């Protein structure tokens, strides 16, 4: 029976890709290992190798087709002795990936790129953007790259260093094109030595350079946390204000998809515990851009927590010469009067979806995107809670000593008399991140849990 070639998943988070090019024609002989096609994802262009031998019977997806879901049959290979007439025996390619693809299923909670860009759910206008500003649609990955490129054009002291940031074009393609524009002096591939290059970055920053240190993920930054905290965060204070460092540590933080415990930890609460650091964790594409530019200009060490699941998401980014969002300001992205939902980074995915669900039941949730965790915009939280009398925090990190715990404490300290119910927390479960798809989903927060918590504090 003819063999079907399926659209491959080329990374743990890939849901669809473009079929860029066929390198074999129908009727050509194929050996196992031959490159038969090129697939473009939002991260990279990859080659598809045949795993079976035979003749390329029929191309089912023409080259140039965009957004082909993972697991869609893209071609059939005829085994020896089979002919084009046998093609009919191949399973009909009609119903592709949607429900068959495990990666897509695992990601049901996260908005799919392009299809449902999350930031579009935003109801409130962004106070940082003047009315009438032209907007461009970009992925968060592109917004980050543009932020770095703009700041590097503006200031020759800004440089990027990290693993695979230059020739590989970024492990997650965030630094794509920077090497070509700025050269190897300013876009520096480091050996796999987080502790060492974090220290080198801090030392360089102490002389006035402004390094952007990329960690391939913040999981690996645990190797470097001594330099981040003991050297970067504390030196200004220990030197009586003489010597500080303007440095950005950035990279994906928290859970990605099916990469298990050592690659899925959320470090938001760790860094937000430390005076001397600023901690930023945006959600929308515009915030990613505006806040990264602010972080690079900030004279202090800034921890910039990105989320791999969001890199491919698109959003509207204002087309302004210099779009900078001040660090330390939360944003009300949806107004409501019944309950305040507070989140940041990918937690906002659950929060916004839950707010939609709650609205169907007549509960109007006010959703606050904190954006910055340190310094925390307590005022925006408190003002909202004074209005709604109820609050739910949403984070992917663990509950104990988590950011939600801090928010709950601040609400208690500043708005106790306004509370009509105890603050509820929706968090990642108190376990190392499991690998199995169903368990991973259970370990993370969900919109349903946020809905449940919001109803509970509303006594509904």
């Amino acid at each position, binding site marked *: 029976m003819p063999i079907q070639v399926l659209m491959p998943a080329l990374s743990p988070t890939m849901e669809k890709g473009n079929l860029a090019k066929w390198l074999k024609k129908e009727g050509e002989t194929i050996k196992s290992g031959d490159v038969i096609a090129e697939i473009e994802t939002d991260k990279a262009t990859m080659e598809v190798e045949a795993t079976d031998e035979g003749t390329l019977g029929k191309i089912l997806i023409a080259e140039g087709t965009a957004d082909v879901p993972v697991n869609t049959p893209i071609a059939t290979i005829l085994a020896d002795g089979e002919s084009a007439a046998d093609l009919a025996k191949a399973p009909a390619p009609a119903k592709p990936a949607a429900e068959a693809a495990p990666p897509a299923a695992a990601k049901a909670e996260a908005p799919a790129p392009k299809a449902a860009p999350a930031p579009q759910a935003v109801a409130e206008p962004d106070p940082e953007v003047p009315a009438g500003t032209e907007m461009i649609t970009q992925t968060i990955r592109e917004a980050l790259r543009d932020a770095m490129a703009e700041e590097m054009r503006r200031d020759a002291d800004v440089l990027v260093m990290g693993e695979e940031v230059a020739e590989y074009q970024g492990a997650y393609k965030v630094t794509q094109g920077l090497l070509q524009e700025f050269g190897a002096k300013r876009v520096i591939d480091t050996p796999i030595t987080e*502790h*060492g*290059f974090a*220290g*080198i970055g801090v*030392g360089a920053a102490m002389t006035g350079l402004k390094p952007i240190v990329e960690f391939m993920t913040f999981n690996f930054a645990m190797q470097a946390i001594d330099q981040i905290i*003991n050297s970067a965060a504390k030196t*200004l204070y*220990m030197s*009586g204000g003489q010597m500080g460092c303007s440095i950005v540590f950035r990279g994906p933080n928290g859970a990605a998809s099916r990469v298990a415990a050592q690659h899925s930890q959320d470090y938001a609460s760790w860094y937000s515990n430390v005076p001397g650091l600023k901690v930023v964790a945006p959600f929308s594409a515009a915030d990613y851009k505006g806040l990264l530019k602010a972080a690079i200009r900030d004279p202090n060490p800034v921890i910039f927590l990105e989320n791999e699941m969001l890199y491919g998401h698109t959003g509207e980014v204002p087309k302004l010469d210099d779009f900078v969002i001040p660090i330390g300001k939360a944003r009300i992205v949806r107004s409501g009067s019944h309950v305040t939902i507070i989140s940041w980074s990918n937690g906002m995915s659950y929060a916004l979806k839950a707010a939609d669900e709650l609205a169907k039941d007549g509960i109007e949730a006010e959703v606050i995107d904190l954006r910055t965790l340190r310094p925390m915009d307590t005022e925006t939280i408190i003002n909202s809670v004074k209005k709604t009398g109820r609050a739910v925090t949403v984070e992917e990190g663990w509950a104990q000593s988590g950011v939600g715990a801090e928010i709950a404490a601040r609400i208690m300290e500043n708005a106790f008399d306004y509370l009509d119910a105890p603050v509820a927390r929706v968090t990642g479960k108190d376990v190392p991140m499991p690998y199995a798809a169903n368990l991973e989903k259970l370990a993370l927060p969900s919109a349903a849990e946020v809905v449940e918590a919001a109803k509970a504090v509303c006594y509904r």
Partner: protein
Amino acid sequence: MAAPKKAAASAEQDKTNGGSPPDFTKEQELKALRDMLLIRRFEEKAGQLYGMGAIGGFCHLYIGQEAVVVGMQMALKQGDQVITGYRDHGHMLATGMEANGVMAELTGRRGGYSKGKGGSMHMFSKEKHFYGGHGIVGAQVSLGTGLAFANNYRGNGNVSVTYFGDGAANQGQVYESFNMAELWKLPVIYVIENNRYAMGTSVSRASAQQDFSKRGASFNIPGLQVDGMDVRAVKAAGDEAAAWCRAGKGPMILEMQTYRYRGHSMSDPAKYRTREEVEKVRHDQDPIEQVRNRLLAAKVSEADLKAIDAEVRDIVNASADFAQHDPEPDAAELWTDVYR
């Protein structure tokens, strides 16, 4: 591969020619004597003040190792940076930082280099290109490599002198830094102050490779073993290393064989070595006595040397006085300098 061979040859020379590095001029000898004496008298006074309770926390004295920083400093030029670990008072004085500011930091007063907020292990001076003063063993090696990275980035011709001890030489980030420094040809002199003990653990009990000049071998970083008790040998090695770095050849390692007379910190029980061992080094190798004896042999008068002594004592006494009378930081200082 020429570099390591050359280094090995030099190291051999250093070992075999029995400490006859190039002579100093009389002016150099006098300067070395004065600068080493300042450190020694300062440290003795700091020890005294610690005993009186005027200095708190940890206090690591540099007595015995003075030739290392003084000799190295003589090999540097304006703009070169210095960074070290927690045994840092000598380094600061050698770079020209004021005794008053260092001592007042030890006593936690507002006139200290860090306004009293850093203490013994955490002082800095942008003006003197002194980048600390770091309390985490080995951290300064990555940071110092970063200073060299910045020099390279700016092409300013400056060299980073990164000091660390035989104990820190076993930390992992040291080798991460070595790799990148040689890979990127960064102008950094790694000065390993081998004073034979990491706290109470002797080199032989902690180090598989006890020849620290070879610690860069896997990265092709040349190294020299230097008599760190002879200020002339230190300067000669410093000259060679600085020239190497400034020529764009990358880093160099200098193992300074030295000795600390005092304990690791003020609370050291000194059970790990004998009194006789300390006395023998003091008697045979003291860096200050070596210079003094050469000056006397060169017919410099006792009176001239006493005058240097007196000048140094005045500076140190004045610093002790300042450090005890300068007010503590204002309570409002608690909240400053967290962010800028």
